[in-house]
């Protein structure tokens, strides 16, 4: 096991002072890209994800359209300056290609795609600043951008990560914990329907730790869901005020 530069967990406190079941500060803003049909910026601590949605719109090339539902196109991408290491090549890595796929498969169950046959819905996600849990911050941003675009959805999809540090199950890994912890479990959850739509895991987990992680993820997702609802409503209260003027 790699040695962390600072202890990750001391007497129930994490390196950044959080309790095991505590999220970093969550900031959500909806409607950050005026040209897009929907957009959102989500930060979990220092991790910042921006999502923009275009569509439903015409599918090009047309032979890739589906006769009975909309096609989703999802891109997860990290900015070259988003990590503490050297400049990241902007060419999509195998990691980014895989994450784009699992995010698409996490969003598809949430959208009434069958209402838009032969069209496509584009979701573009950019990681501006990375400090762990980027794919789950992306998922929250993407689902808020879809909601902001007015696309009919079964539920919001909230992303949270759960990790394993010194045998303790913790919520919302930062970059340090992601690098040096014993396990990482990114989760996407629909809080109203109780459905898991994103679930990956690596590390070494017992069955009990896995069960505990699911419970903690639900708790974290419900907390973020509250913030997400507020942010969505805030935008439309602003619109309502403007209309009233």
């Amino acid at each position, binding site marked *: 096991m790699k040695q962390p530069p600072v202890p990750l967990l001391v007497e129930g406190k994490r390196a950044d002072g959080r309790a095991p079941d505590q999220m970093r500060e969550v900031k959500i803003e909806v409607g950050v890209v005026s040209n897009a049909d929907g957009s959102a910026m989500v930060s979990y601590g220092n991790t910042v994800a921006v999502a923009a949605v275009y569509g439903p719109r015409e599918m090009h090339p047309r032979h890739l359209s589906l006769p009975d539902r909309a096609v989703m*196109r999802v*891109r997860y991408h990290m900015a070259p300056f988003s990590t503490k290491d050297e400049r990241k090549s902007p060419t999509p890595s195998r990691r980014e290609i895989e994450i*784009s*796929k699992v995010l698409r*498969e996490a969003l598809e*169950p949430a959208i009434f795609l069958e209402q838009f046959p032969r069209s496509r819905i584009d979701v573009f996600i950019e990681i501006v600043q990375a400090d762990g849990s980027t794919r789950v911050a992306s998922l929250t941003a993407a689902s808020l951008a879809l909601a902001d675009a007015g696309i009919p959805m079964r539920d919001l999809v909230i992303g949270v990560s759960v990790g394993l540090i010194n045998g303790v199950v913790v919520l919302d890994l930062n970059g340090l914990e992601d690098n040096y912890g014993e396990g990482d479990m990114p989760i996407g959850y*629909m809080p109203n329907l109780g459905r898991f*739509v994103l*679930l990956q895991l690596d590390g070494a987990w017992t069955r009990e730790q896995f069960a505990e992680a*699911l419970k903690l993820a639900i708790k974290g997702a419900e907390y973020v869901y509250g913030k997400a609802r507020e942010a969505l409503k805030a935008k439309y209260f602003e619109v309502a005020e403007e209309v009233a003027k």
Partner: protein
Amino acid sequence: MASVSPYAKRFVSELTRQQIRRLIASGVRIDGRALDQYRDITIRTGVVNTADGSAEVSLGRTRVISGVKIGLGQPFPDAPDEGVLIVNAEILPHSSPYTEIGPPDEAAIELARVVDRGIRHSGFVDFKRLAIDPTKVYVVWVDLYVLNDDGNLVDASNLAAIAALRSTTLPVAVKDESGVIKLDKNNRVAMPTDLSKVPLSTSIGKIDSALFVDPNLEEELSLSGKIVITISQSSIVSVQKTMGFFTESELMQAVDMAYSAKQKLQEAVLKSLV
């Protein structure tokens, strides 16, 4: 590059799909298997004599060849005392009428990365023993070749990878006169692997609320959800949900199915590998 909902070109007829789904509701599968039953597994090692290790796995009609090549390279900066593992998968144009020629697409990349994570986190390969000196380590290339796709590529590929790694011999690293490290291909030692830690993946399909292991291709095309769970010893070392959604209780049920499938897979592996 973006991920696009795949065009549903791999048709299964609506009649077959409905039949599969209707049967599952009463606990029966289209090919007569029980919900917790794998198709027949055969594992053969040493099938390619130009590779440093190789294996061919049949899982029903699904066939995967795995070849291991050993090279020399630099360690990753965050793990200077460990060898390097690189897993790559090619879903060959041979494998089905719907597979196209080209570089690995997102399905092949995901396949390789899921197999990679299971091996990496299980301790099956002792990467510390693959370090030669602080600047030189063994690089282990595992290439997975899907010859025929009749469903559940992940489990077949995972078995092929571990069997090939188990059969691999490492050329001994020696210093030549000028002090440069080279590999002596005529002098070989066994790959440091530990069969008790072998990572075993179980793909679990979901139709309505029924869960079952090892979906074949027709079943895969009829699923409403799919998840892969990899277990080593008593630990869950990798999970990947690849389709649909699962509730909390379905996930716990899937984990329990994976634990019991792992026992049976381990028997099959131990029978074929020494």
